[in-house]
């Protein structure tokens, strides 16, 4: 019989009552539970922001990193131990503002990690400044003046960057979101989920009420098939996804935009050139024996012979 884990820590969750993050937390916990993930083999890597605190609330390994840098931390964790399930949580400011460079770079690598973005349109923890997903001209209550920067489109950016699983969820569509998370975890390659997350304290424009009226599920349309089923379809499916990604306002699609498993993952690429990887990997490779290096003097000289000159006497 399978061992059951407790996927929530006992800490008090200090988000504002009504915050969309609660919905995300529940979905994550549920998804982990249903996948039966081993907490000791699972890592949540989070950035700094209200969203980033989630690492403490889930009872798997948690690495609560620096603002904007969760992706590179996650990359090191995953590359060193490819056996781990690594899930990144970040705010929209975290991932698409200060961390946008890493966000793009992860797409290029198609490393097998999941990125879940808590998209609340604001910098929550610093008290409500406009985040990169807040549209131009919008004035939330925390802003003195309407937003002067355009929004970046997270789905489009993810598609342009090369993510091979791109989806959008909504914090208060629990089951739907939980399913997206499960699929993203099962997906081989870089997965991105843009989660619409009401911030009750600072964002009075993109509220639960707003989303209730505007969101619709992509898979309600039976003809919507975002999955690349043979490599030749990739271009067309990508273009379909891009076209859909432009929808915003009256009707906001949630669900899967694009899935392509025909792109090699970074781990696969590495294993092609790095013998024994990923089975032997940085976290389990033997590097010492009884406090000594694994190489003997003679073996050392053998390996580095190109640097050694035997004096001709």
């Amino acid at each position, binding site marked *: 019989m399978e061992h059951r884990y407790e996927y929530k820590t006992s800490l008090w969750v200090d988000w504002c009552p009504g915050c969309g993050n609660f919905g995300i937390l529940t979905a994550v916990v549920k998804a982990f539970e249903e996948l039966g993930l081993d*907490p*000791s*083999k699972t*890592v949540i*890597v989070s950035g700094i922001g209200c969203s980033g*605190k989630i*690492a*403490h609330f889930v009872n798997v*390994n*948690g*690495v*609560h*990193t*620096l603002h904007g*840098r969760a*992706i*590179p*931390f*996650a*990359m*090191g*964790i*995953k590359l*060193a*131990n490819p056996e*781990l399930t690594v899930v990144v949580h970040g705010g929209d400011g975290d991932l698409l503002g200060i961390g946008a*460079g890493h966000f793009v*770079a992860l797409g290029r690598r198609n490393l097998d990690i999941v990125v879940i973005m808590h998209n609340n349109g604001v910098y929550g923890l610093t008290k409500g400044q406009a985040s990169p997903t807040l549209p131009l001209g919008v004035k939330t209550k925390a802003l003195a003046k309407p937003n002067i920067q355009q929004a970046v489109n997270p789905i489009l950016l993810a598609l342009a960057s090369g993510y091979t699983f791109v989806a959008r969820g909504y914090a208060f569509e629990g089951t739907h979101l939980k399913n997206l998370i499960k699929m993203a975890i099962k997906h081989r390659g870089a997965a991105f989920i843009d989660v619409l997350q009401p911030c009750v304290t600072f964002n009075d424009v993109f509220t639960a009420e707003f989303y209730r009226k505007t969101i619709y599920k992509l898979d309600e349309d039976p003809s919507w098939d975002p999955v690349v089923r043979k490599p030749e379809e990739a271009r067309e499916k990508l273009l379909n996804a891009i076209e859909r990604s432009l929808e915003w306002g009256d009707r906001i699609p949630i669900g899967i935009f694009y899935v392509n498993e025909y792109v090699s993952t970074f781990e696969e690429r*590495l294993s092609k*050139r*790095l*013998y*024994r*990887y990923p089975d*032997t*990997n*940085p*976290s389990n*490779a*033997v*590097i*010492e024996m009884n*406090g*000594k*290096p*694994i*190489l*003997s*003097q003679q073996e*050392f*000289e053998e*390996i*580095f012979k*190109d*640097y050694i*000159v*035997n*004096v*001709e*006497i």
Partner: protein
Amino acid sequence: MKEIGIILGGPQGAGLETSMAVLGRALARKGYGVIADREYFSNITGRHSYIHMLISSTRLPRSLRYPVEILASIDAETIFTHFDDVVEKGVVIYDENQLNKNIDNIPSIEDYTREKIKTKLAKLGVSPVIKNVVDYLEKERNIKPIEIDFTYIIKLLTQRFKIDPRQASRYVSGLIVSAVSIVIGLEEKFVKYGFEQQFRERRYLIEHNIALYELVNDSIARFRNIVKIDEPKIGLNKLMIVTGNDVVAIAKIVAGVRYQSYYPITPAADESFTIEKYEYNEVNGKAVGPIVVMQTEDEIAAICSAIGASLSGSRSSTATSGPGFDLMVEGLSFAGANEVPVVITYYQRGGPSTGQPTRGSQSDLMNAVFAAHGEFTRVVLSSGDHVEAFYDTIEAFNIAEKYQVPVIHLLDKFLANTIASIPVPDIDKVRIDRGKIVFNGPSYKRFDLSNLISPRAYLGSDNIVMWYSGDEHDEYGHIVEDPENRLKMYSKRIEKMKLILEETPLDIKMGIYGDKNPDYVIIGWGSVKGVALDTIETLSSKLRLRYINMKLLWPFPRKEFLEIVKDTPSERIIAVEHSYGVNIASLIAMATGVTVTKKIAKFTGRPITLNEMIEAVERIIFKNERHVVLSYGA
């Protein structure tokens, strides 16, 4: 001669690095000691670059000096730039096709430099044309001109082997190697060995270059042995020929690094390429690796991913130089706050900002020691030469893991790009200490406060769950703002410094050389070591000098330092550094209260050479100068 100094000069891209490697191996094969610094512009093709080399028949040399016996030039710019660096009775090797070149027709010379050289030549009454300069050297300086028709020789070669004339330029490096070998009397078989080692993977180049050697020999046979080097008597039967980048890379592999991240930057990147070359190896059925060498999108990702890899249990490091380190500072403070063992190999180059990206400096000491907000334990370790760099690299990982702290291994461009002959490292002397590791059950506390060092588990260890947070945290790693917890956790992280100072052996803290009852003590760190040791040796007949090579720069080994200088009044301490401020003196003042007032500084980006160092020490000791600023070298 017992020792010979050489400058090989030519445009960037002409293959001087190859010449250096071939000549280095060839000389080592016969049993000579070699050291060679490479000077080049931040440029890919065309700017003036040169190799400054010293060959010794009696020892493994550790510093360079001016003037040199041989100036071997590929182009006219080399002659203009270095004509003044050749000793009387030395030789100058040049391409006769350059004889009519006027300095005004060499666009690659910087205007500033051109004007400087023209002024100098004008004072000597020499017009700025190569043939006049060569004439001047021969007549006024008794320097032998060795003229070679580069064009003709290479034409012969390309014809013989039907080489595409567009490939002709790649033979210039072999030509210059051949010429120098002939002049110093290095036998063909050694030169051949050098070519063989260098071109292992392109055998046709070996054949061509040996033929080239013969053509050059035909052309200048009469100069064979004209500056002959004595037969070697060093007595080692094996030598390693490595750059600083290489030796650190090799040491990291021995240390067990399994994750190395980098973002390309001079002069650090070559280290990562060498590790990559050895990313997986098998010997006696034993796997060494795999090592993940990761080119990240920037230095922020380099440090953050290295920290991540460390959390997963990998020995993990990154390598960079000043601009990159600046970007790593926030990550460094995360490592400090979360007690993460990670090694940052920091190769200093000329700053501030992009500065002099391909020139050397030691001006980042304070940055390495103090950058990052908040207080926490970091270790800053420096190495004085290639041999130290090897052992210190391994020690850096040991310290990092034993004390769960970030370690900065502070090196510089001089070391990075200098090729040196060293004894083969003694692997038996190497220890690997991974520190306190646990694999115990569910109630694991990553930051257990019962000891300064909390037992470490890796992400992924069975049945263990843990948390890390850049926020102040409790023993489990969860955010806590309670002031009492803060006091304990903050103190714990800082107080490891005491432990490190207590437990680190003296030889990792510092090296002490020279006279036990010195008149003067010279203090330096890093790349100053070789030239300092040669200086105290050279002056030993007239002065009792001692050199202290500071290695553990932070936490500063106050106790031992004070013990060593206790009989030396502070006016008799001289600090030397490749910087403006000679900042080690500030660090000493801060950590020990000893005020060093005598300083030798160089910050032109070029290394301190023996001649200037000796002069500087003499000026301080005999002429009572306090602050000597050096500037020799093009």
